């Protein structure tokens, strides 16, 4: 990991953290969505650094291109402009307890990484450049998808079909009462 990689990683990680924090904090849902888009772009940069260029491209296409546009579409259509986040909860002390839970979760995660020996500076075997080459190549990913992971890949298409039908059925305006009375 050379200096340029480190600088790019730090910049992208800072952008990702700012995006996540802004998503949690901002009162306007549109601002939240835009912060999350910044976060996804930063994660795409990190995917590139981790030698996964296909997934970086898919991150930009699928997440920022499709998912967040869908989010913004729903926000623009269905949320009134004056509707802001009210810090009133039905559970008392909800913010306090969630703060405690968050601190516990982050400590457990970092402790798990520590116990797993992630932080111990082990002499890392200089893997051949060919291996990284194979990791970055789209051909290798494609042949893995169509040979070893064929079944999950095809199941994904089934899942997308089911989700599409479900979304159409759920979001359709229908006079349900009349039909049920007839039946």
């Amino acid at each position: 990991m050379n200096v340029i990689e480190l600088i790019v990683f730090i910049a992208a990680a800072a952008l990702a953290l700012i995006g996540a924090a802004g998503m949690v904090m901002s009162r306007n849902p549109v601002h939240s969505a835009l912060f999350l888009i910044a976060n996804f772009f930063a994660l795409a940069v990190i995917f590139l650094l981790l030698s996964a260029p296909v997934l970086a491209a898919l991150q930009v296409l699928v997440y920022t291109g499709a998912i967040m546009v869908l989010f913004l579409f729903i926000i623009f259509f269905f949320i009134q402009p004056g509707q802001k986040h009210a810090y009133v909860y039905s559970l008392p002390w909800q913010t306090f307890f969630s703060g405690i839970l968050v601190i516990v979760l982050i400590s457990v995660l970092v402790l798990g990484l520590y116990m797993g020996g992630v932080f111990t500076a082990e002499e890392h075997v200089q893997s051949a450049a060919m291996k990284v080459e194979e990791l970055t190549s789209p051909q290798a990913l494609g042949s893995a998808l169509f040979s070893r992971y064929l079944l999950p890949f095809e199941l994904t298409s089934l899942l997308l079909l089911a989700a599409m039908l479900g979304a159409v059925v759920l979001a359709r305006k229908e006079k349900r009462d009349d039909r049920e009375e007839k039946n």
Partner: protein
Amino acid sequence: MEPIVVYSLVLSAVLFTMGMLAVLVRRNPIIMFMGIELMLNAANLAFIAFSRHLDKLDGQVIALIFMAVAAAEVAIGLAIIVSIYRYRRDVDVDAVNSLRG
């Protein structure tokens, strides 16, 4: 482990926690959904970091399938939010208590 893998794993842990914070402290279901997306992305980052560490493509394949699952989940979830909104004219999760016993 390579330093970049370690940093990515720590970043993934922090992002996952922030997504959980969004689910816990916000009441707008759309923003809670964004928190869930953030958690899925953090898991993706961990998968890709381990794929780099192990020099194997399996992590990348799983991350790719995760993206498809996230897309399906968002489509269904937003459709549910839209139908709740049509019914109640309000999308506050604490106000949606029709099934409350």
